[in-house]
């Protein structure tokens, strides 16, 4: 007997990545030789390596997940669906450190390595996770000649009206991060964007082996084995970044997580919550002296993406806390006919929409949104509303294919 196991409804190894959100899976018998009946009972379970991720399963769209399920699979070759999800709090640390196994009468007849791929706190990454991330990021930059140039060009003075100072601030940056993360995953599929939790000390980030330490002029110094030493943007070599706070502590004076989550006011509205753009977001940017302290130059510093990953994480946690995933709920967004193009729910977002007319910037670098082997959303030209339901809590097909280590499935 042979069987085919489909993760995220696909057989490609590129699709074998799970989060906390249930992933659609299928199983079918591809060769029934040796079987006598019209169906066979197959047990689906997971085998985890030391410190590996943990996976759980469910047969239908409701009910509890469990460590194993047994499915009756027709011998005709018809597929049987089930759901698999990472067990919250038990992410993977390397690719394939957990396998989905199929057993028949106690014998393993198939085993597919998977990864519970989750965005984590950058301060807590293992050495291997850190090195893989840094290597992929340096390759994306490729000394200023790589795809990162598009990301740099998306966040310049001429385009700031698309991304800042209006309701689209959070959705736009969610798309921006997702696009970049998917490109990193093309280089190394085990990589996710980590976040810099700027309301907590994060000394492990500011080391020569990770995001570097500031030299006497603010030029960041990296270790000889760190490929970020070759970072280059706009022709400029390296990174300039002087922290205005002791790196053993968090930047002082910015809103902490609890304060940020309360910004939505008594009705927990997005309209108020989005004032986080100034504090803590702007305050985190200006806790350094260097390009990261200025809107038009901030992405010259790769730390930008760790900072914004935390901004997105805060929004995700706020959404979960106050049930603000549904675009149809008024408090989930700040819709207003007076909003500029790109800042209302049905609007497509620049630059992925390719529009360069009068209300949009003169160029649209980077082309459409990168696709994912695991999920279909948000498509090549995402709209603002496509960014709200990132876990597919309202509609499973809307999930964007990423999760945070401390934000469970809605």
């Amino acid at each position: 007997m042979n069987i085919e196991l489909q993760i995220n409804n696909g057989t490609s190894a590129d699709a074998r990545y799970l989060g906390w959100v249930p992933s659609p899976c299928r199983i079918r018998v591809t060769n029934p030789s040796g079987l006598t009946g019209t169906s066979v009972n197959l047990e689906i379970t997971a085998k985890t390596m030391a410190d590996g991720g943990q996976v759980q399963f469910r047969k239908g769209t409701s009910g509890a997940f469990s460590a194993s399920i047994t499915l009756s699979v027709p011998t005709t070759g018809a597929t049987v669906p089930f759901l698999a999800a990472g067990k919250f709090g038990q992410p993977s640390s390397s690719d394939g450190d957990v396998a989905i196994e199929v057993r028949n009468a106690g014998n393993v007849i198939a085993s597919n390595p998977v990864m519970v791929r989750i965005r984590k706190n950058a301060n807590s990454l293992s050495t291997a996770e850190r090195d893989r991330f840094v290597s992929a990021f340096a390759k994306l930059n490729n000394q200023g000649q790589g795809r990162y140039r598009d990301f740099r060009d998306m966040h310049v003075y001429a385009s700031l009206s698309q991304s800042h100072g209006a309701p689209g601030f959070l959705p736009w940056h969610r798309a921006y991060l997702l696009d970049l993360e998917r490109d990193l995953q093309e280089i190394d599929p085990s990589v996710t964007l980590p976040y810099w939790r700027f309301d907590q000390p994060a000394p492990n980030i500011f080391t020569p082996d990770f995001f570097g330490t500031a030299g006497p002029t603010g030029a960041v110094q990296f270790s000889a084995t760190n490929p970020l030493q070759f970072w280059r943007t706009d022709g400029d070599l390296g990174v300039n970044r002087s922290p205005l706070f002791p790196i053993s502590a968090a930047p002082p004076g910015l809103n902490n997580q609890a304060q940020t989550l309360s910004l939505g006011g008594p009705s927990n509205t997005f309209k108020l919550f989005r004032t986080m753009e100034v504090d803590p977001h702007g305050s985190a940017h200006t806790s350094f002296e260097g390009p990261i302290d200025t809107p038009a130059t901030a992405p010259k510093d790769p730390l930008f993406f760790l900072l914004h990953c935390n901004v997105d994480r805060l929004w995700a946690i706020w959404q979960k806390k106050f049930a603000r995933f549904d675009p149809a709920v008024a408090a989930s967004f700040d819709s207003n006919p007076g909003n500029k193009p790109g800042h209302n729910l049905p609007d497509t977002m620049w630059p992925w929409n390719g529009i360069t007319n009068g209300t949009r910037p003169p160029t649209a670098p980077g082309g459409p949104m990168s696709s994912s082997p695991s999920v279909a959303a948000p498509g090549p030209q995402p709209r603002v509303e496509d960014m709200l339901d990132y876990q597919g809590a309202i509609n499973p097909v809307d999930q964007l294919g990423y999760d945070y280590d401390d934000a469970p499935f809605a």
Partner: protein
Amino acid sequence: MPDAEEVRIMYMMKKAAKRSKPVAKPKSVPAPMSSKQALSVVTSKVKSVEDRLAALAQVTPAISSNDDNLQAVLGVVRDVSEPVPLRMAVLNALQAASFSVVAFQSCQSDYRATLRKIAQDPNQELRERALGLLAREKDAFAQKKLLDGLENPDKALVAPEKALQLLSYDVHAAAYRAARAIVEHPVSPEAKFEALRLLATDPTAIPMFEKIVSDKDELRANRQVSASALHALDPEKLQSLARNIVLDTSDYDDIKATSLTALKQFGDPSKLAEDKTLRKSVSQMKTKGSALLRQSASQFLSKPD
């Protein structure tokens, strides 16, 4: 943006969030106040700096909500009689508010004018901060001041290395000239390093970078920055130089490690796999080299990503 009442509600909620946490020193928790009240504390010279800094956090999101708020905080930044930590904090708050780009648009011209004034402040820290913010906005006034300082050190507002670094955000021919002069006659190691960084976009500097990369008497930082410059200006040349450095048994471990990282990260994997001489040398480093060389050799010999 939210109106004033919404901002006030927001801060009442924020205050409530603060109260819900364990507080070691209850006296340090500021009393609830509107953004208007907070602004009056920030601008009050009779209040302590600590109180004024605490109130500033409540003012930041409201800075751009009306001109009175903006002018009040700009006044604090401009006032040389105010404590420097307070002026610096207010400057950072203004810059944080500028991230709300659309709302801050009406504040930009007054803010820019204030930065230009602070660029010539008696306090060096504030000067550097203001010049940095202006330079990143490609401000012509700041660029001229920085160049003037390089050409005439008596007029320098910041150290030459800082001036070169800030000029690199928008390089013009005059900056190249100033950088070349400093490479030839460095006033400090830091200034030479920053001059090399600035010249990294100048194709005519390729021979100079080649020489520095190969010069064992040069500082490692200068050789490294020259290697990075060469990789962009002439990638094949760097790969060749990096290979030579790795094979040179008399060169320093840190520059060898940098060269191995460059080869591993940006070299042609198939060519590297076929280079038996290189792989043999790196294999020996993996077992007999220093800890740094062993680490970089292991990375180099690991499977391609």
